[in-house]
């Protein structure tokens, strides 16, 4: 397929990579949130229900990250190479965390021993929590900017990645995913566990709102380039407004027992946050700090127009099908979790 000249394929792929990572945040976000809340539940049965609430879907949700990574590799290989090699230890730790999260779900309920289940409970919670934290830290660094030399290589250190702003975004991400996961649990559970989850929604929301307020202040004060575009185009403030209204809507819907609407509000808030992030970053993919000129952009870090075109064809063919059967699978597994003999 050939695409018209006026279509900026680089910009299209900026959006598509953003869509993939947003999809990842929406979907695996609640898995990681459920994992981060796992140890707060009390009985073995509650823990099994929590695991099984994400049991059929977590694996498909993680594929959004794998595909997002693949798309980044294909569309912007220089960003992929610079960020992955530059954030070496952070990404290795993320891998280990994701491995523990994955196998803990599979292994935990396969043996009855208390020590066995406790071990994998901790693995599941720690894996989920660490994953969420590291994803946030990576986002924080991308927003803050990282030292990049004139060959486009990362010129910083691992410790340098752990500066306060990045850590703040890490904690904010944990809070956001916990809130998202707690709402998901309210939707998927009933009885005592659901009451417990309602309590988690409240606490996670307060936690998130505090983090969000601090992050916003810190961004305006110390990372002004992440507010430039909205400052220059006041109508874009509507995106920030949508985000805030969506968050404010969550307790209202929970109160009225509209769990699905609460979950969709949480999704809307996350989409608005990612949209703001994308709007401020565009057309940069990785900001170089302090030497702005070395930033990796959608133009200097991209694959050839031909590859971007081929990939767009792949995306146009594949993604609608993926969305169709993903939706069907969520539909099949709708409703409250019930344990049966195939459950984890």
């Amino acid at each position, binding site marked *: 397929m050939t695409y018209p000249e006026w279509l900026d394929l680089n910009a299209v792929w900026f959006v598509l990579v953003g869509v993939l990572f947003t999809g990842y945040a929406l979907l695996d976000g609640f898995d990681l949130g459920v994992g981060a809340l796992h140890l707060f539940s009390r009985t073995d049965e509650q823990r099994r229900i929590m695991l099984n609430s994400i049991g059929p879907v977590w694996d498909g949700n993680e*594929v959004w990250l794998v595909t997002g990574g*693949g798309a980044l*590799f294909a569309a912007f290989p220089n960003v*992929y190479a610079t960020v992955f090699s530059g954030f070496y230890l952070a990404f290795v730790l*993320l891998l280990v965390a994701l491995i523990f999260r994955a196998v803990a779900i599979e292994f935990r309920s396969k043996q009855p021993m208390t020590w066995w289940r406790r071990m994998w409970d901790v693995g599941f919670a720690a894996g989920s929590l660490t994953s969420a934290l590291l994803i946030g830290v990576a986002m924080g660094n991308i927003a803050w900017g990282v030292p990049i030399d004139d060959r486009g290589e*990362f010129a910083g250190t691992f410790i340098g990645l752990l500066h306060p702003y990045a850590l703040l975004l890490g904690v904010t991400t944990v809070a956001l995913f916990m809130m998202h996961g707690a709402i998901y649990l309210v939707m998927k559970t009933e009885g005592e566990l659901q009451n417990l989850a309602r309590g988690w929604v409240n606490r996670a929301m307060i936690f998130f709102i505090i983090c969000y307020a601090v992050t916003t202040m810190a961004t305006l004060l110390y990372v002004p380039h992440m507010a430039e575009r909205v400052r220059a185009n006041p109508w874009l403030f509507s995106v920030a407004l949508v985000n805030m209204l969506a968050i404010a809507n969550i307790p209202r819907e929970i109160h009225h027992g509209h769990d699905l609407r609460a979950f969709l509000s949480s999704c809307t808030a996350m989409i608005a946050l990612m949209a703001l992030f994308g709007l401020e970053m565009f057309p940069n993919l990785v900001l170089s700090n302090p030497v702005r000129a070395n930033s990796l952009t959608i133009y200097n870090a991209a694959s*050839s127009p031909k590859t971007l075109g081929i990939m767009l064809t*792949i995306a146009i063919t594949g993604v609608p099908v993926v969305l169709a059967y993903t939706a069907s699978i969520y539909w*099949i597994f709708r409703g409250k979790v019930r344990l049966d003999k195939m459950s984890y």
Partner: protein
Amino acid sequence: MDVLLLSRLQFAFTVAFHYLYPPLSIGLGVSLVVMEGLWLKTGNPVYHQMARFWTRVFALTFAIGVATGIVMEFEFGTNWASYSRFVGDVFGSALAAEGIFAFFLESGFLAILLFGWDKVGRKLHYFATWMVCLGAHFSAVWIVVANSWQQTPAGYRIEQTANGPRAVITDFWQMVFNPSSLDRLSHTLCGAWQAGAFLVISVSAFYLLRRRHETFAKASMKVGLGVALVASVLQIVTGHSSAVGVAENQPAKLAAFEGRYTTRDHAPLSLAGWIDEQQEDFAFNVEVPGMLSWLVHGNTAGVVRGLEEFKPEDRPPVNASFQFFHLMVAVGFGLLGLAGLGSWFCWRGTLFQHRWLLWLLVFAVLGPQLANQAGWFAAEVGRQPWIVYGELRTSDGLSAVVTSNLVLTSLVLFTVVYVLLFAVFAYLLNDKIHHGPDETDLIPSGALADHRRADA
């Protein structure tokens, strides 16, 4: 130790560990399709019991396959950043296609395969089983295509950029159907089918020896032997055509596989040997005269190129390539023999009395794993010193900013985690096998049972 060695060790270790599992998933996927299909066709509850039991084993291998698979994708970026910059334009599209066309498919329908027994009708469930199996095959397609492009690059040109040269795609389909794609894909898939089938055979043989779950074991054994026999015969065919392809496209690699330093006609085929790389000759060798020329060209007068035609710095490690290759071939023929023997006695109806053969079949589960690993190592060691054949050297593919201490740290970390994973996997698999199939699975439950009643 230097970064190159450590990075290669880490990639080899993580990919070798990962490669234990996807072949099992692909092979078990085929067996699941057969078993569930037989159940739908015959209504015999033992097939339902088989499908259920093997689905649980499948879930275990699949989970570890997924968990360890994402590591490789990340490693391209973390450890091989220069390689990623060089190949991203070409290799990245195959990887992205793998995500969109394969991973979503298998992980999505896996939910129904594992947890949907009582939620959907049996036809939809069988459809999901097919889709998971198909998805697993698609993922093999795209990753083997990407790897084959590294072996025999096609459909690209080299472009100079500010960061140095990079490969840029000129023809997507030429890239996909590069000269070695189809050979290597069919060969890899046969190896995967063998891995799954011999696991089924091994567990069934164990039950038969212990006189447990005999109805289940006999029926599983037949399905396993059927798949194993077909796969093992095809494996020899695809292996031969792969080797002919290697002779044509990667002559240095074939020369290393066979330990040939001199270019000559009537080239002999080495059956076993040990190569002294200093002397550039065999220290020990058993060979069939003229056989290599005959295999490659169809006549013994054909000329087979030797390593002397390649500069020493362009040659792969010879003895290692030779040993991995010969191990793979030997095990491959051994598996064909076992599958043939087992099928013969099974057909004669006497298999279950031959305890020695059943014991052999119990241990045969290691065969495909050994052959798959050896074959993979032969293919990748034989590709050296190139990471993209003829275009980019492995030593030029490293990340510029990653130090040996970093790689050492991650290598130790992965080793600890993978040893733990393997121990848990072995423990749980053993536990599942000792627990055996669930007798209550002889009676289909839930939606499936309702459909059976409605259909009856």
